[in-house]
């Protein structure tokens, strides 16, 4: 059965947050408003897209999700 879109959306959102937290120092979101969090995620997404030479949409588009799925090193791409 095709994955219902809302589940896929949820799955992608988790993938994105997980990746940005590990490699782009996205702060944890438990004490932040949803609005502030989405702004922060968009900003970190653009940072990741810039690093990988992707279109800086700030959105989890197909090319960005594909890049996030590639096997890689565990060291963050920014900061120490």
């Amino acid at each position: 059965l095709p994955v219902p879109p809302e589940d896929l959306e949820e799955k992608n959102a988790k993938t994105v947050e997980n990746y940005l937290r590990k490699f782009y120092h996205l702060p944890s979101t438990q004490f932040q408003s949803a609005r502030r969090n989405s702004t922060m995620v968009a900003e970190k997404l653009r940072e990741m897209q810039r690093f990988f030479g992707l279109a800086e949409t700030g959105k989890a588009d197909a090319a960005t999700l594909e890049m996030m799925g590639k096997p890689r090193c565990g060291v963050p791409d920014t900061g120490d």
Partner: protein
Amino acid sequence: FRLTPGSPKWTHTNLTYRIINYTPQLSKTTVETAIEKAFRVWSVPSPLTFTEISQGEADINIAFVPREHGDNSPFDGPNGILAHAFQPGQGIGGDAHFDSEETWTQDSRNYNLFLVAAHEFGHSLGLSHSSDPGALMYPNYAYSDPSTYSLPQDDINGIQTLYGPSNSPIQPTGPSTPTACDPHLRFDAVTTLRGEIYFFKDKYFWRRHPQLREVDLNFISLFWPFLPNGLQAAYEDFDKDLVFLFKGRQYWALSGYDIQQGYPRDIANYGFPSSVRAIDAAVSYRGKTYFFVNNQCWRYDNSRGTMDPGYPRSISRAFPGINCRVDAVFLQNSFLLFFSGPQYFAFNLVTHSVTRAARSNLWLNC
């Protein structure tokens, strides 16, 4: 390249390393050889030396560990995160950890231990990730044949910024990643493949999607780890749904991403004399395949399996207006697109004339 913020580096250059444990998937000797080779990648272009110790505290400790392993950076099981390493410093500084749940190999199967180790040791020495997709310090895993591996120039620049040049009289240099919008860019080979267009250069290819017009850069080894770098010619046989790739006198046949059995073969199979050492370009059109060698063109009949009589002919006679050596050529609609250096020429097969000349990298959206 990027240095780790604060540019941490080792204050001594004679570094020690210790392999704390091993992966059961490779023999101890294989692991030791891969690790030693990975350190040599960095010692060649710099004054650094690496000595293995089996007791005591080494500068760089190497271990295969799973999941949560006490450094607040847990691994995640097979694939995903493969390994990590810490910047130069005391204690955990410099140490490299490999996810023990990965499949570690010494060949093109995921994941080659030598390549991942060479990357992690870059971190152990003070380098961060590079955004150059061809650099060793690029975050994503990309296979390259270890037997011919050469540290890219981007990484050489990084390590020499930290530790200075090597002590040897001749400074090593490495390959640079081609940039799509380099005005001097020339292609090694171009072919269509099931509607997409592949532009080959060194160990890379750009893939152009017909509708999206998007172009992405990949390693040849990403799709075809068995192919050599520096391909010289390529064409698609639409009737057989095969792509043929050439280097020197050898050629390979691909069905999509899979290599056909029994390749590589010798171009003598097409009827080329031994005097022909390599092919510059090739394209197949209406049951005939045209091969371009220096200033000559050969024509091969795909169904008879032999060269047509009256060939080779001079290129400028067979294709008026193409008065240059051909690097690459492909077919699009009723045009042959000939690439020579930084230029391409559109040859109209109906009017049998060149109808356009422009910059080659227009095809890469430059």
